[in-house]
């Protein structure tokens, strides 16, 4: 075949595909052009003008209103519920499993699924307006154990964060490897609530974990890190109670560390007993720091528990699962509150023991993420 004919055919095909792409993009912009839509929040207390066409979740995020979500808008967590009084249209099939009958009556919707196509009226709890986005610099990354890293991040100059000890942040990854888009996960803050210009997180490597693998293999000191927060209702109550029973395993130590410092720095009178469960000596960390706190503040008792210490560990402390120590050392629930952070199995086992001792849902606190 003549070479010229082949070139002409290739050019013609390229022109046709180019023309088709232009037609498709023009028709998309016409068909999906919802113009500017007004979002009326809390009966006119805030009115936003946004470009229609995006999800309510991302439209609000663009306006610096961050609705808690754990799956990044993929309709698998059901956390991003917002009351939409007008403008959302009928409930979508993807929302149905997540919205109870009671919530339907309150006009609750999954903000990741509802598209902004017209003016809307929304109700958003006031506390969510305290949630901000921070582009921090990673200034330190230390190995606390073989699978837990401590990330220390500096907030941009002039910015401050105010959080309650025990709360968590959403940490956003950048695309890496097969991960082609940003994902985010929730991590408790381990630093002191009195520190407003830095944040620390403890991140344990989860095999095949989408976010923890990023932290452990791709992130470097000096990188910019995007965070949003603070989120969550895991924080100190303490009213009418004398003693705080704190229980953690692995990276669940993070919010407990923040809580311990909060009690001490505020000069609160509560006694604190911190049961920290681990398998072997190599899973323990912050040992010197907690031992020092114990020495300096008699109100604090640290009880590390090793489930199966190795002979070479020469372990002299509490042996067995953290549940054993809890069973043996906590007599009753009188004037006590319990704060837990760890894996679901550990949480369930500890909650069962605590309830047998008289603790109730009102005196047991833990994060559900």
């Amino acid at each position: 075949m003549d070479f010229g004919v082949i070139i002409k055919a290739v050019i013609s095909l390229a022109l046709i595909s180019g023309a088709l792409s232009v037609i498709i993009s023009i028709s998309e912009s016409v068909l999906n052009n919802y113009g500017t839509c007004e979002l009326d929040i809390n009966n006119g207390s805030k009115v936003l003008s946004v470009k229609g066409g995006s999800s309510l979740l991302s439209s609000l995020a663009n306006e610096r209103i961050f609705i808690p979500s754990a799956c990044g808008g993929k309709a698998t967590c059901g956390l991003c519920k917002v009351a939409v009084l007008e403008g959302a249209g009928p409930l979508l099939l993807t929302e149905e499993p997540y919205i109870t009958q009671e919530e339907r009556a309150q006009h609750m919707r999954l903000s990741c699924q509802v598209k902004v196509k017209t003016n809307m009226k929304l109700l958003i709890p006031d506390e969510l307006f305290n949630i901000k986005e921070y582009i921090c610099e990673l200034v330190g990354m230390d190995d606390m154990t073989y699978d837990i890293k401590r990330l220390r991040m500096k907030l941009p100059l002039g910015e401050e964060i105010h959080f309650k000890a025990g709360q968590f942040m959403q940490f956003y990854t950048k695309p890496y490897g097969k991960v082609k888009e940003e994902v985010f996960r929730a991590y408790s803050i381990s630093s002191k609530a009195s520190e407003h210009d830095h944040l620390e997180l403890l991140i344990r490597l989860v095999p095949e974990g989408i976010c923890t693998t990023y932290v452990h293999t791709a992130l470097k000191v000096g990188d910019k890190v995007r965070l949003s927060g603070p989120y969550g209702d895991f924080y100190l109550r303490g009213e009418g109670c004398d003693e705080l029973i704190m229980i953690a395993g692995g990276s669940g130590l993070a919010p407990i560390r923040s809580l311990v410092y909060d009690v001490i720095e505020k000069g609160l009178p509560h006694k604190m007993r911190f049961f920290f469960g681990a398998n072997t000596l190599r899973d323990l960390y912050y040992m010197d720091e907690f031992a020092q706190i114990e020495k300096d503040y008699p109100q604090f008792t640290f009880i590390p528990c090793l489930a199966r210490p190795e002979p070479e560990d020469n372990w002299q402390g509490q042996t067995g699962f953290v549940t054993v120590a809890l069973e043996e050392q906590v007599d009753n629930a009188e004037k006590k509150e319990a704060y837990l952070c760890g894996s679901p199995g550990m949480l369930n086992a500890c909650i069962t023991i605590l309830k047998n001792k008289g603790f109730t849902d009102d005196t047991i606190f833990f994060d559900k993420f």
Partner: protein
Amino acid sequence: MKENPKDALLRIDMEAGRLIKEGFLGEDERPISDIISADLDTLTELEVSHVELARAMRRLTRRGMEGMGEVVDAGDYLVKSEEYMGWLGCPFKDNRRAAKRNTQAVDKQTGREMRWSDLSIHLIEQHAFFQGKGSAFRLEPAELASFLRLPAPEGAAE
């Protein structure tokens, strides 16, 4: 066969890096409904259901959980379940979340080993989805049934 629009959306969420790092489909390019049908055909031939398989897996996982990270002797198997903070949402968007827990089971007689996650159990039980070929957590239905000694021989105690 052409993928229906619902499956096409599901496929996007099942790709690597969306909900989990390696995704649910591996190298499998078949429509999701075809993957499920083919595996169900295998189970029909074996005369065992996906629900029975999932229940047997869950029983072993629960035994493994008793060890809190330590190997547990569970009769015909040695089982170890390891868990992490957090949970994974189901890609079928049914408002079910699975703990981030992996179970490793070894058949004491044969030395054969299989592993699964809590999400795998849910996907098999509720959606008959054993994941795509080449996926890190794909479980071949025939291999799984044989590993779990299902269907149980007639007259065998449950």
